[in-house]
């Protein structure tokens, strides 16, 4: 079986079956990653995954073997998610605070695309979404996607030590939130 990196090189040469194989390998998993980053917005996660693969293919000539393809893919996906969060934050800052208009900063929840979950799971989602974006990204990459510390560091272009400190702070904050909301008891 060809590795992701070999498939990426084949795509550089215009190989469509390599493209099919690589997208089939990662698409579903990538949607899962973005779904969690966006607080459970499936439609948004699918759109972002589509945008990620489009960017990957448009920039495929910049891919240099033997860089790990998965870290490159997740780096692009993370940047897309971050751009989305920034735009949402800008929109929020333009709203008159006196109007008490509600906007969910990070997720842009659309009722039709957000699945109904039980109260406990909702508590987990809320706790995760209360983390800063930096902490949330490393927690999701580590404990949902199972990426190695070094791979997370490469994906986010930060030192391994920074990954560890973000994980540590993120877990601490998650614990507090889950305890406060009654989802977790000591």
């Amino acid at each position, binding site marked *: 079986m060809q590795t992701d990196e070999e498939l990426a090189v084949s795509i550089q*040469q215009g190989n469509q079956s390599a493209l099919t194989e690589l997208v089939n390998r990662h698409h*579903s998993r990538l949607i899962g990653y973005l779904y969690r980053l966006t607080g459970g917005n499936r439609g948004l996660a699918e759109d972002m995954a589509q945008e990620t693969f489009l960017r990957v293919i448009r920039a495929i000539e910049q891919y240099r073997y033997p860089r790990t393809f998965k870290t490159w893919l997740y780096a692009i996906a993370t940047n897309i998610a971050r751009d989305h969060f920034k735009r949402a934050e800008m929109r929020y800052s333009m709203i008159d605070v006196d109007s008490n208009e509600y906007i969910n900063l990070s997720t842009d929840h659309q009722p039709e695309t957000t699945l109904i979950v039980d109260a406990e799971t909702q508590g*987990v989602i809320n706790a995760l979404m209360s983390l800063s974006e930096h902490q949330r990204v490393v927690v999701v990459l580590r404990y949902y996607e199972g990426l190695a510390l070094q791979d997370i560091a490469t994906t986010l272009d930060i030192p391994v030590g920074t990954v560890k400190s973000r994980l540590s702070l993120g877990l601490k904050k998650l614990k507090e939130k889950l305890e406060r909301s009654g989802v977790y008891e000591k």
Partner: protein
Amino acid sequence: MKNNVPAGNDKLKTLLEEDLGSSDAVDEYLPIIGKLQQWSTPSSAQAITDTLITQLAHELPAKQSHLERVLEIYPIAILRSQLMIVKREIWIASILLTLIGLLVTMAIYDSTSNDLTPIAILAPIIGAIGTGLIYDSGLERILELESTTRTSKQMILLARLTLVYGFNLSLSLLTSVLLSLIQSDISLLPLISSWFIPMTFLSAFAFFISIISGDAFLAWSLNIGIWTLHVVFNGQISNANPLTQYLSLQGLSTPQFHPLLLMMAMVLIGVAVWFTEQVEHGRGNVA
């Protein structure tokens, strides 16, 4: 509320140990990870993936032949880009001068004479003119290219030097081979050795002067002057006074000096390329 410990928690334990260091911390946070694991992602329909693949197929780069892929290799791509930018006059001048050298050598070559052949006289001049003009030709384009790509101006200059020197070297080699085939009394290797080192040294010297002074005319006129002195006075060396000996710059075609000249050529190129940045800054400050 019940605190779940995740199924298959050995893997998560290992992750936590690596992240948090102590086993106490692992025990403390393992249930938290267990809670996180409760949140599963909905399964994604294959139809969505298939639609995406169809869409991406339109964005695929065109299939490349082996030759096209080779041409995309970084050093070759730089050389190709510079091939179109280097002044056309450089190629034309080199071809014309080499042709003249070939014809004159064929017409007047005398195997009994110890003098340099016309092609051996012209080859270093061709080299010096070509490389002297590299920096002068399209300096703005070098800076423009540097600002729009990741290629440094030093790399661009080296690519141009490789192209121009390589072209002149190939022309002179071809001419020497032709001469040795046409004129049976001309030996190939002695002919090549009569121009190769002087050409290499003067090309490097012209390149160096053109970068330091920023003046192509100064670079190649200085080199033509040096070589002319050598050619004129070297013939009179047997009955020469000290001044003639001095002006003849004997070392340029003395085999014992060739390794030294070759080393000096490399040093001159290295220094010139290294100084490119400084020279450019200096000019920028003056401007």
